[in-house]
């Protein structure tokens, strides 16, 4: 038997690591991976609460979050490829034009 709070603390740690990576990383791909880490942290708290309240809706929402994350990853990585093709860099400090 694991208390619910342990799962929430783990979820919070993962989310905080994601936010920290989003802020301190300079490679655009790693920043994108930090966003995925944040989504994973949120998913864990969804499943933990679903188990706590004995309902399955939380798991269905995790499924939807995963589908949105997959769509986001596909479009985001395509944008990264397009950005790299024009600016020849992955460092976000050097990417300062919205225009391709």
């Amino acid at each position: 038997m694991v208390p619910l709070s342990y799962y929430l603390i783990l979820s919070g740690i993962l989310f905080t690591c994601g936010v920290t990576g989003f802020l301190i990383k300079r490679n655009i791909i790693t920043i994108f991976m930090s966003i995925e880490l944040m989504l994973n942290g949120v998913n864990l708290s969804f499943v933990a609460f679903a188990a706590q309240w004995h309902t399955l809706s939380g798991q269905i929402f995790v499924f939807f979050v995963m589908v949105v994350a997959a769509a986001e990853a596909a479009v985001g990585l395509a944008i990264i490829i397009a950005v790299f093709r024009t600016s020849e860099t992955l460092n976000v400090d050097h990417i300062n034009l919205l225009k391709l």
Partner: protein
Amino acid sequence: MLHLILFLVFGAICVAGAVNLLVQTHPINSALSLIAVMGSLAVEYLLLGAEFVAVVQVIIYAGAIMVLFVFVIMLLNAGIEERTKGSRVALLVGVPGVVLGSLLGAWVLLQHSGASSVSLGAMPGPPKEIAQLLFHDFLLPFEVTSILVLIAIMGAVVLAARPESVHVTKKEG
């Protein structure tokens, strides 16, 4: 007791992978540690009795999405990241602030944990009930999701295609 040990072991792997993602400078190392985080999160889902979510986590996250990431890292030949100096104020104020805030949050959560606990297989989670929810109660969001994925596929193809090839297809069409 076994649940607690499994939770602690795989939770430690999760946190270690997440910290390793921040520490590593090469994106491919970060991607591999993210795969480790997702794999151990799947075990945490199993401990919560969410078999469906665990399997989907492994297939979609640790499989499809991370393959996409590794593919793009190798396609763009991403090298070692350049480090820039962060602001001093952020380091002096931000880090203690985060530590204090997280300690406070953990303390509040532990105070209110009470008798609430989760055990393996305690919740109803057979495929039948999940299918009932997914294809009956949440049918409209599920169908909208398929349209979303279709739009994402087309958007990815348009964005990643070379500009001249898009031009050529326009001329032909």
